[in-house]
């Protein structure tokens, strides 16, 4: 059981890492792109834009936290 928890923590740290909001934001945006694409909207620009915003928000949050 302990091994399973450690295994799960390894993958969480490995993929999700320090800021879970990035993971939530990416999944929500990809879901939005999927829905748009299946309604004939070729919104190819949405994901790069969301990535830039998510990274900026995460860096700003970390910067405020460290400089506080």
């Amino acid at each position, binding site marked *: 059981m302990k091994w399973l928890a450690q295994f799960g923590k*390894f993958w969480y740290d*490995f*993929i*999700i*890492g*320090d*800021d879970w909001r*990035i*993971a939530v934001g*990416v*999944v929500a945006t*990809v879901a939005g*792109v*999927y829905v748009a*694409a*299946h309604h004939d909207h*070729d*919104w*190819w620009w949405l*994901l*790069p834009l969301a*990535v*830039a915003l*998510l*990274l*900026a928000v*995460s*860096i700003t949050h*970390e*910067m405020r936290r*460290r*400089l506080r």
Partner: protein
Amino acid sequence: MHSVLLVVAAFLACTVEMVEALTIVLAVAVTRGWRSAGWGVAAALGGLVVIVAALGPALAHLPIDALRLVVGTVLLVFGLQWLRKAVLRASGLKALHDEEAIYEAEVASLRASGERAKQDWYAFTVAFKGVFLEGLEVAFIVVTFGGTQRNVGLAAIGAAAALVVVLIAGTIMHAPLTRVPENTLKFGVGVMLTSFGIFWSAEGAGINWPGADASLLAVIAFVVVVAFGLVALARRAQAIPEVATS
């Protein structure tokens, strides 16, 4: 072009993981002896072969769009975390990853852990853990990169090239690979993983990129601009004048 970028991305990402594994193995071997450390490395490599052999072929049976959607999304989350850390390091908000300091800390900890036995289980375990965990990350990169392009072999070539380069460099230096500009490398890997993640997850979701595969270059350029822009902004916010991407 796409294939070349795939090999380069796999090579860079695997190099970073292998440098970390080699640092741990060298620290163990130098302080506790090569025999037990060698067994640890061999056992870890055996375990990794079993995992890759079990997971790799399974990917070939999945529909390509679903595979790109899932793997691209995971890669994007994973790549963004990597890029986030690289931006924080480059802007001075996070300490630079120092292989030499890690090596020294590992050596001190191993020396403090007591006398060596004939079969040194401590050395075995530390070497096993280092190689297995870093190797698992290499396997993840090879399987996801390769699986999404239906070409695990190409990603494996990148990983194999990384292994050869890191082993040769490690043998020559016989010390932690402090001369490898690891933080610069991590910045590059973060950019590549994020770019591939954006490209594949959008493609898997049903998006048609303008310019098809060529747009991957534009995505990479965009991610580079965003990352450097954030480094510049973060530095300005802290008034740190020195450039520290390496």
